């Protein structure tokens, strides 16, 4: 459990104003690195919270569905172009980002993941693949500048980042389908 201190250290480090503004200065790093790291931090902190409050997770998230729903809602919110802009323009939205991504996305994801069925897991990955293709398409081919704080080229880079992530998830889905198939034969 010592590792938890490193996680907390990383969490604090990422929230330092100079570090945060450096990562936020590039759109794709803001969304695909900083935000992802915050989710991962929540993911890594989850076991500690589960140990401390086992009843809470059991009572409120018995089958994993509420947790997954919460995760999906929070992630969808942060893929809105507006949320990214607002996080830069208002300190309280920034603060909400620092709190919501680890504790309302990372933690519930970890707690729910082992509780939900394999088909729901795949469904979730398909949902995010579709979302990422949609966001990629939106950011690359949108004729308008979606975020006032970023240049058009940043936006297009982010779009390709989304598409690439979607491709990775498709490869994963195909891979798991093929291997499962092999097992049954």
């Amino acid at each position, binding site marked *: 459990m010592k590792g938890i201190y490193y996680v907390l250290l990383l969490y604090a480090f990422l929230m330092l104003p100079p570090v945060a503004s450096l990562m936020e200065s590039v759109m794709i790093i803001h969304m695909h690195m900083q935000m992802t790291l915050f989710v991962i931090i929540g993911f890594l902190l989850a076991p500690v919270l589960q140990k401390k409050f086992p009843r809470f997770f059991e*009572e*409120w*998230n*018995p*089958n994993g*569905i*509420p947790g997954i*729903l*919460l995760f999906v*809602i*929070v992630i969808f*919110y942060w893929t*809105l*172009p*507006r*949320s990214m*802009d*607002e996080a830069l*323009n208002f300190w309280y939205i920034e603060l909400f980002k620092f709190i919501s991504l680890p504790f309302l996305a990372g933690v519930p994801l970890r707690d729910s993941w082992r509780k939900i069925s394999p088909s729901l897991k795949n469904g979730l990955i398909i949902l995010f693949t579709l979302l990422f293709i949609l966001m990629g398409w939106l950011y690359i081919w949108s004729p*308008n*500048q*979606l*975020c*006032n*704080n*970023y*240049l*058009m080229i940043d936006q297009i880079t982010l779009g390709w980042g989304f598409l690439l992530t979607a491709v990775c998830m498709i490869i994963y889905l195909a891979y798991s389908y093929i291997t499962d198939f092999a097992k049954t034969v």
Partner: protein
Amino acid sequence: MVNKKLLSYLLVAVFGFVLFYFGTDGFTAYTSEAARVNQLKEDQPLFPEVTLEDHAERVYPFSEFEGKYVFITFFYTMCGTVCPELEKNMKEVYEMLPDDGLEDDIQFLSISFDPERDTPEVLDTYREWLESDGETWRMARIPDQQELDELLDRFGVTVIPDEYGNFAHNSAFYLVDPEGRLVEVMDYQETREAAVTVMDRMEGGGGK
């Protein structure tokens, strides 16, 4: 147990609804540009007192246009992407308006946010390219950077210089009423709609 499970679904659903409701101003603004436009229409900020220098080297305060509607765009002449389209569309709106209205009731004004490079000479070349008459439609810069920044800030125009000497900026048609208040922010790609909005305003009174 069952009750708590149900309650947790409900809580998550309510949280999601509230988050998206407030995050998008009641599902109306998914980008901050849309939110900006909504906010501006509500605030109706006053056009600040600035000094303009136009393509013919005439220098005058903005209050020169008092008593008229002013149709405004923000641009810079070195722009190769959005601005030419923005200005061409402005021309389309200009041509859709009736001639007598253009004489007395409305002023067209393209304001450059690059005063260093957009000297009156440069602006005049741009005017020629757009075939504007130079009277009812003028190109101008605001030489005082502080005044310019104040205006851009008040009208919510974000201008970010990039490393190649270009600017990233948001674009729209702005309509200021005869009292100097910003009353409309319009989509610059919907020229017909913009022309209709402007004519409605002018007929609605005020622009005598």
